[in-house]
């Protein structure tokens, strides 16, 4: 099982972000910590001492927690579940919040072995547009400090396709990123999320995104550049040096069970899915009353099949064709032959060793491909009746 622990606090809210977070006061932080501790215990009782391969502290900004709180949480987790020897234990952090006292040393000592820094950009103007509370310089220092404090697995998060960003800017930025020698790089194209200040600015026309053509090139050329630098493009937005793929996230794409803890966290265990409420106080109530996790929904075979296709096709490895057969009893290649032929002819997919995967150009239009597959799946279902 994968464990995800959501920390819903941020120092400030970024204009593009739709994630659930709030600016904390000391009280809220303590209330949260107490509740999460109880939730861990609750699931321990319910699920037993299940083996856990990875732990991921995400947010929000987990690095806003005091180091000793992180230590306590990890302690509780490893006492409750069978966290495996050598498990990947990731934590998301903001550059400005890790460089303080002995924080990096302490969290490393507490067991965090993979640090994911939300750098987002190394360009001052773009950081300003994004509303990030740190500078590029702080990011560089954070990487150096993390290395010095023993982190052997560092990820840097970036966003591209930003207002005013050119293809040249982005490729130049990638060069600077590579110079920091991270082990893993996530490059997300900016998506305009609902109910964010960015959405409003975008609708108003106050911000303008790069053209479709430029964005496509940012994706394709950027990925090619990173691969030349030794970073494998193993998922639509993720690149890693050999051996440094994020096991936790790969787990999501490969359909592993995951338990999400904390407000707004989602879990999927044994094909049942549920999500915790977003609001901290309600969350606390649900933990105290024990009703947390009572709202599970079974995924239908159809939904499971859709998710199998949607998630596996995000990865470079792709969809194991046998997995489709195991789930549906049918043959993928036969079910979708005309479409597969066309996609293959046009270099959008590859098929090898029993796997079907999207090429880079295929990834770029993956939503359209998946929609088409979903549509074709419905027609198959129609035929069956």
């Amino acid at each position, binding site marked *: 099982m994968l464990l995800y622990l959501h920390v819903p606090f941020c120092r400030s809210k970024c204009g593009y972000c739709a994630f659930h977070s709030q600016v904390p006061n000391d009280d809220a932080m303590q209330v949260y910590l107490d509740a999460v501790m109880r939730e861990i215990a609750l699931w321990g009782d319910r699920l037993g001492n299940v083996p856990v391969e990875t732990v991921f502290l995400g947010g929000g900004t987990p690095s806003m927690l005091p180091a000793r709180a992180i230590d306590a949480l990890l302690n509780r987790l490893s006492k409750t579940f069978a966290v495996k020897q050598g498990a990947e234990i990731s934590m998301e952090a903001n550059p400005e919040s890790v460089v303080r006292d002995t924080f990096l040393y302490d969290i490393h000592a507490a067991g965090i072995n993979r640090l994911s820094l939300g750098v987002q950009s190394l360009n001052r103007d773009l950081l300003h547009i994004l509303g990030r509370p740190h500078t590029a310089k702080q990011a560089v220092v954070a990487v150096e400090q993390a290395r010095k404090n023993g982190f052997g697995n560092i990820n840097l998060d970036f966003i591209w396709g930003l207002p005013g960003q050119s293809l040249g800017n982005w490729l130049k930025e990638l060069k600077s990123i590579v110079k920091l020698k991270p082990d893993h790089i996530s490059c997300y194209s900016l998506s305009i999320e609902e109910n964010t200040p960015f959405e409003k600015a975008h609708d108003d026309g106050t911000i303008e995104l790069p053209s479709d053509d430029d964005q496509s090139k940012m994706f394709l050329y950027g990925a090619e550049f990173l691969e030349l630098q030794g970073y494998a493009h193993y998922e639509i937005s993720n690149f890693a040096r050999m051996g440094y793929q994020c096991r936790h996230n790969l787990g999501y794409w490969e359909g592993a069970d995951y338990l999400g803890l904390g407000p707004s966290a*989602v879990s*999927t265990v044994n094909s049942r899915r549920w999500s915790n409420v977003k609001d901290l106080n309600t969350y606390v109530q649900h933990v105290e009353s024990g009703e947390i996790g009572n709202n599970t929904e079974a995924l239908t075979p159809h939904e499971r099949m859709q998710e199998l296709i949607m998630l596996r096709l995000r990865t470079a490895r792709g969809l194991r064709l046998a997995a489709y057969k195991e789930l549906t009893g049918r043959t993928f290649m036969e079910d979708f032959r005309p479409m597969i032929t066309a996609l293959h002819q046009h270099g959008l997919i590859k098929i090898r060793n029993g796997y079907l995967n999207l090429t880079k150009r295929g990834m770029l*239009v993956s939503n359209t491909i998946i929609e088409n597959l979903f549509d074709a799946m419905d027609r198959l279902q129609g035929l069956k009746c």
Partner: protein
Amino acid sequence: MAKLDHIRNFSIIAHIDHGKSTLADRILEITGLVGERDQREQYLDRMELERERGITIKAQAVRIPYKAKDGEEYVLNLIDTPGHVDFGYEVSRSLAACEGALLVVDSTQGVEAQTLANVYLALDHDHEIVPVLNKIDLPSADVDRVSSEIEESIGLDAEEAVGVSAKTGLNVDQVLEAIVERLPAPQGDKDAPLKALIFDSWYDSYQGVIVMFRIIDGTVKKGDKIRLMATGKEYDITRLGVFSPEMVEMKELAAGEVGFLCATIKELGDAKVGDTITLASNPSSEAIPGFKEVQPMVFCGLYPSDSQDYENLKYALEKLQLNDAAFQYEAETSQALGFGFRCGFLGLLHMEIIQERIEREFNIDLIATAPSVIYKVMTADGVTHEVDNPAKLPDPSKTEALYEPFVRCEIHVPDEYVGNVLKLCEEKRGIQKDMKYLTTNRVIITYELPFAEIVYDFFDKLKSYTKGYASMDYEIVDYREANLVKLDMLINGDPVDALATIVHKDKAYYHGRAVALKLKRSIPRQLYEVVVQAAIGQKIIARERNAPLRKNVTAKCYGGDISRKRKLLEKQKEGKKRMKRMGNIELPQEAFLAALKIGDD
């Protein structure tokens, strides 16, 4: 049995919307044949489509008993004829069953080309014609102008025209009197061998084929063994009667009368319009002249948009053909559209009607390929072939000569649009034959035109060039050699058979570019580049490129995002249009239809 001199057989000639059906309704009402309670609009137009479009597709006949002002009882047989050029042959047979006609002209509009064509047809049959000016209650009625049009164009004395309002019933009684007084009674010998003209027939699932006929000579009784002279087949009459307006059985009918019969005739094709009925025991020595086999003139492919509807479509076509011997179909396969049918029609209206009936009465979504005429192809071996499907045109290297049908076309138009009409006809490769003034401001223009151009977009253009004021009529005259080529449309290098057309070489470039552009515009961006080409043989004459879709990707999809993303993709999928595969890409049906839709935007 009615006395010969107390019978009047008449038809009503009118342009669409000039009020023929309304006048018929009033006549039925005034004579008391149809009570208030049974009234419905356009009583004689039985098909929903006829009523809705205000046109008559099938001929109908109704026997109206009428007590005239002279105190005598008359039998009036109203034979309602189809009013469209596509059904010209049926019109001529209906007219052959009458001695006279009412010419209904809308006094707010005037004489139209089609009216005139039918009037000439009636005059050819030596009919007596009573002009009726309709809609005289409307303020825009111009009785003087329309009267002089009738006098000048037809040579009828409009002094005696009856001014009516079919809508209000004003003066309709005068029309009835005029029928009795001015139209001749039929002639014929009731003791001569039977000679009756079939002017309509249709299929009834309970009674088999029902035949409408007019007796020229002789007498027919229930139980008689009849012979149909064109086929030589013989049948026993099981039912005999008249429509008045519902079926009324009669023991016998004699010369001059109009009626129906059932004789367990199983196929409509066995009781062809125009054929002569006689008695097997005492046959007439000669048939009524004028019989001919009707041949489809316009062809197109009909395909179900959903291939699962193929069987339903086949059923629909079978059903429709039961009642429409002029409509033909045969199975065909298109690479682009799958399984469907090549269908032949009398004309464009006939085609539209059949398509509409399939979609409406049988609830099948159709894709129709562009209509085509019949071309004649002489191959190198000197053999002439008929081609009704452009995709089947033989290779140019094997073709000696190509011939296309020409029509003689009469266009009536107010003189201010003459310039536009001439321009249009010249654009359409027309040859001017005649041009004369019908009245001081209405002109008849006569052209010979390739039928293919008429079928292509002539009507639409004529309408827009003359703001709808022109009316036209045409008939096929002959085949002429022409410099024709097959224009192929290719999508990503693959020819799409359903989009192939035969065009005049001089127009191929223009046409190819237009269709390529239309396709390009209506194909949404695909996952990959789409190249649309127009080609004559191996030569590409137009090329349009549709750039591939650039970016549609979800950046982040982790544990908390999965349900939402799945639902989002599911929703996007639902917005997808139904696709047809063409070549190696999937096209939304709209794109395909846009490319098939002929003419300019």
